[in-house]
């Protein structure tokens, strides 16, 4: 049904290196899942099985770890995954409005992927950026902060042209007064 996934020699070498960092093999699950996600773009059950078999761990355990984190993609996602934070702070500052706007704009619901395979939306828990709420994260990478609907629109346009947002340094209020 699904594709066959394998690690090549280089990957296996990296995995050995990862394993050597820990006294037991279970802590290696997370970095190896990252490695797999970097390679295949997702960690579908078949990839989870590959990781489990490579590490000699039960597949159920790996699934438990992978499903705990929204950062691991348990199915194939679009090129850009927009993780919209809907935890407390963002919620109060309009996180759901942003999510709503995105959903209407892209014509998909949270957890879905656009037909052209460009965008996926996820509603996620706190990303630790409450000071710049509401915010979203693009494909486990750059944060886009202090969102407004206009900012979202321009983000989508930029992404469509393949332009990732820049890293944005936002000073905290207490630091602002210092400088």
């Amino acid at each position: 049904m699904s594709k066959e996934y394998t690690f090549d020699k280089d990957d296996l070498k990296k995995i050995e290196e990862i394993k050597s960092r820990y006294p037991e093999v279970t802590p290696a699950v997370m970095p190896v899942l990252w490695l797999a996600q970097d390679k295949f773009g997702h960690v579908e059950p078949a990839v989870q099985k590959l990781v489990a078999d490579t590490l000699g761990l039960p597949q159920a355990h790996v699934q438990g770890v992978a499903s705990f984190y929204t950062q691991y993609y348990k199915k194939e996602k679009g090129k850009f995954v927009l993780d919209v934070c809907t935890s407390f702070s963002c919620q109060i500052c309009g996180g759901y409005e942003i999510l709503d706007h995105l959903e209407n704009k892209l014509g998909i619901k949270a957890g879905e992927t656009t037909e052209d395979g460009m965008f996926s939306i996820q509603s996620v828990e706190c990303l630790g950026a409450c000071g710049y709420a509401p915010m979203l994260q693009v494909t486990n990478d750059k944060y886009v902060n202090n969102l407004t609907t206009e900012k979202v629109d321009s983000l989508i346009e930029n992404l469509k042209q393949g332009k990732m947002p820049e890293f944005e340094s936002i000073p905290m209020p207490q630091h602002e007064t210092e400088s």
Partner: protein
Amino acid sequence: MAEIIIDDKKFEFEEVGKVLQFILDNGMDLPFFCYHPSLSIPANCRQCFIEAGQMVKDRESGEYELDEDGNPVIRWFPKLMTACSLDMADGMVIKTHVTSEKVKVAQADTLELILINHPLDCPICDQAGECPLQIQTYKYGPEGSRFEHKKVHKPKRIQLGPRVILDAERCINCTRCVRFTDEVSKTHQLSIVSRGDKNYPITAEGQVFDDPYSLNTVDICPVGALTSADFRFKARVWEMNQTPSIDVTNGKGVNIDLWTRDNLVMRITPRFNKEVNDHWMPDIGREAYRLFNENRVSKPIIKLDGDQVRSSWNNAFMTVSEKISSVKSDEILLIGSPYASLEDNYAFQNWFNRLGVSDVYFTPHIEKGYGDDLLLVDDHAPNTNGCKALGFKEVDAKKMAKLLSDESYKAVFILGDDLLSRVDIDDSALESKYLVSFATNHTETTKKSDLVIPITSSAEHIGSYINVDERIQRTIPAKETMYTNRKLDLEMSMGRLDHFGTKFDNWVSDKNRVDCIPAWEVLVRIGNEMNLEFNFASPQDVLEDITDKIPALENVSYDRMDKENGIALKLSAPKSVTT
């Protein structure tokens, strides 16, 4: 000796255990969900909260410090502790909900949180009636919930494996099932997925929960999240009657409970026995309830002109006595059974000894490689060691086939065993013989028998069985036969329906009583017919006779077996005599 004070009462202890286990062992109550004595302790349900402290000891004098009022000074842990994971210590002071308002509030609050997303579908839930969550909510729970929003929905009716069904909404994520597959059965098939209010246990994608011990997770599930695919919706707990018994489908002799309703065994669950099976049993043993209910031989069956027809008991008894009188004693072949109880086997041997037949043969039912490291052993039969203890001659299937086709035997008596299904023999070889089988169920053997005498199964009689580890354990009748009555037989237990049901309501009938008699009693009655001096009045009588005659079984009694959860024997009987 070390002391611990629980709710202002002083207890002494020697071995340092966990506080929760100590509280339970001393007959006190403390609510908990995730703790299980045979599994690791994650302390994740937070239900067994207690206040704990330590009496302050003066380092120099070694005396407890006293305050102005003369009471010992107690240094309390800053927060509530989980009793399940807290080690006992000398001078420890524990306050449970009995003496602490704080604990009481904490217990109610934890339950309120646990119940936020619980569907509260107790009226249609199989666990209702034996559900720790239900019981503890009644005892310690809040009056109601303050949660006014939609509950989180999760997968329901997921067939995890051939025998277990998951309802994730009912799950409280205690992880008992996960720990069971990790630590006991070691198949590692389950794990908790997702997080927060969405998590629940499930197998890895595409994997089937086919653990041979999977149904134990249903037993230890403290809610109705895991239910048995087979038993689901069949009976409510309070309708059934629970009788302690022994598994007769394997040589391990797993301790079980038979749950009966209207004289049908509805389900089988393991019963704790530290020496044999701990809290567990293999799934396959639970299938045995079909053996007790279905395909039973009820009323004797006799072969007339090649057809098997039902006969009266008197006719059957007369046929046996006539047959025996018409053959010489060395023309009789006796085959005992590792499936029959010690009492039945002994009565069988003893009865025929009086007629001058001394040798009893039996063929063990051993399948190499069938066993595992946990509770299944290669021996399928519960009483192989019983046959050996009685000095039966052990022959393998090939030799048994030879014996059966030996022309010098004119009559063959087979006790409670589907012998012919494991012995390869031509029908023609049996034609010249008169085959009498004492049987519980219709089998290959009964089909070929000239006379079938229905005997009681382990669910209907008292019988002892000696397992592979030479441990003797006994069964207690759970089902009534046509000739027994729960109300009169003090060994039998009475459920609600047995007390209050009548033949005229929907739930109780006489339909499920089997027309059968214990093998020893059959022999007593045929003995009367033949004026044999063979007078046992009860299985107790038979057992006493056995213990008198066999030194290895000295001092064995039902009382002792009950009190000591079975007795470990040292069998010195000659092993595997072959001819």
